[in-house]
């Protein structure tokens, strides 16, 4: 791995519950994500994987430890509009069209709207003919693709995906994963994906970080190097299923 884009150094996160009781969501989490790398955070619910993502996005602050994105605090990147994020809930504004939603980051950054970039992104996520549709007129998968297009609008330094396909049915989900792999090949943005789906994590990422719960901590890291190309039937290959099986057993134990 060459340059580091994201580093977490002994990060801990506790939430205050009632008086004098607190809950440790993450304990002693150290991890790194390289520039241009696609890393998946995999774990059962309650392992704090979304909390890690929310901290990288500047939505939560670590209770202790150091978290840096390209050498800076997340809040600084937020101020410079350098983060892209897509949530499980697509979070598209219902009163804006698809194109207007994708253009929103430009407005929030007070930059002139780059129409060419928006058309390019809509083309990339396959929504070119739906640019004037409203989110409620789209299917769940289309909304998520619009949401990812919006996250990529300003060419962010880091793309954060919090179970973006978690609410979709299995068939759509597989298709979306294929789409995302293709999109990522084009954009090559440093990406952190949070998921509880082993196949999704192994299929999309170059490295999987397995977390365990109570308190949330890193259990295992696995760099993936498949001979097969993702868009070329990787998910039907034996080597792919070996890794999936192994990681699934790890999560079960």
């Amino acid at each position: 791995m060459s340059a580091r884009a994201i580093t977490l150094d002994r990060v801990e996160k506790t939430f205050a519950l009632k008086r004098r009781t607190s809950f440790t969501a993450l304990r002693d989490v150290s991890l790194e994500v390289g520039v241009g790398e696609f890393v998946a955070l995999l774990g059962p619910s309650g392992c704090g994987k979304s909390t890690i993502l929310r901290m990288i996005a500047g939505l939560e602050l670590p209770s202790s430890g150091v978290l840096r994105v390209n050498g800076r605090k997340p809040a600084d990147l937020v101020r410079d509009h350098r983060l892209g994020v897509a949530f499980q809930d697509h979070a598209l504004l219902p009163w804006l069209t698809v194109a207007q939603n994708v253009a929103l980051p430009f407005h929030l950054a007070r930059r002139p709207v780059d129409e060419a970039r928006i058309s390019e992104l809509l083309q990339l996520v396959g929504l070119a003919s739906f640019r004037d549709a409203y989110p409620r007129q789209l299917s769940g998968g289309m909304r998520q693709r619009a949401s990812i297009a919006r996250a990529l609008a300003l060419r962010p330094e880091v793309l954060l995906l919090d179970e973006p396909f978690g609410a979709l049915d299995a068939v759509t989900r597989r298709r979306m994963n294929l789409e995302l792999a293709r999109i990522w090949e084009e954009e090559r943005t440093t990406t952190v994906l949070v998921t509880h789906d082993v196949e999704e994590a192994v299929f999309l990422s170059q490295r999987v970080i397995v977390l365990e719960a109570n308190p949330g901590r890193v259990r295992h890291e696995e760099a993936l190097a498949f001979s097969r190309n993702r868009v070329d039937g990787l998910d039907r290959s034996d080597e792919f299923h070996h890794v999936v099986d192994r990681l699934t057993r790890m999560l079960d134990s």
Partner: protein
Amino acid sequence: MSPRTKRVLLGLLGAAVLLVVAEIIGRLGLAGRAWPAPIEALVTVLGNELSRSLLLRALGATLLSAGIGLVAGALVGMAVGFLGFLIPALRAGLDQMASILNTIPLIALAPLLIALVGPQGMATLTAALGSGFAMFVATASGLVSTAPALADFFSVAGASRPQRILRLSLPSAVPSLLNGLTLAASGAVLGAVLGEWFGAPVGLGVLMISSMQNFQVELLFVVALTAALVSLAAFYGMAAVQAVVGKRFV
């Protein structure tokens, strides 16, 4: 037959049955002279040139007071609701003040209000009070009804506070505002009629009082029916606007 048509037909049937029963009671005089036969009353009052023009003039005056009161009350209510949103320290106090003002019976406030705006201004003022409260509540709750995921997105995208208010909080409040407007519109009509009881020169409320005092039971019935119908029309009119505009915002 769709469930919707079935419901509407059932409703109309119920209304018709009620009307026929009321008509029979009135015609036979079963409930004394103070019970008018609805259809007969309508025919008598609307068939008479004089009472018809009297009714129309009163209706015009009431609609004018209700309209002005609605607009003024809605503007003030929304402004105060927005103020409480901008300055959170004011929020609790404003909530309390608005609900206290709304729970004091109008009859207790009336002398004070008459001294303030005079009997002629009462209809507009009571219309404004009712609709203002509805719009205050709608604004205050609408502005904080933003979906958490949308708020998160604005945070990560580095939106400033003015951007957040303009591009997120205000559009998110639209459904709630439209909802408030349906209540405010029908409330304004009833508020105006009520306000006219305190000495307005003309209006449905005035006509109600005078017909009551002169034992013009049929006229009284038609005036009350008119007030109810106008109020319902205001409600359903706004509900139609809500259905068309509101669905864009959810």
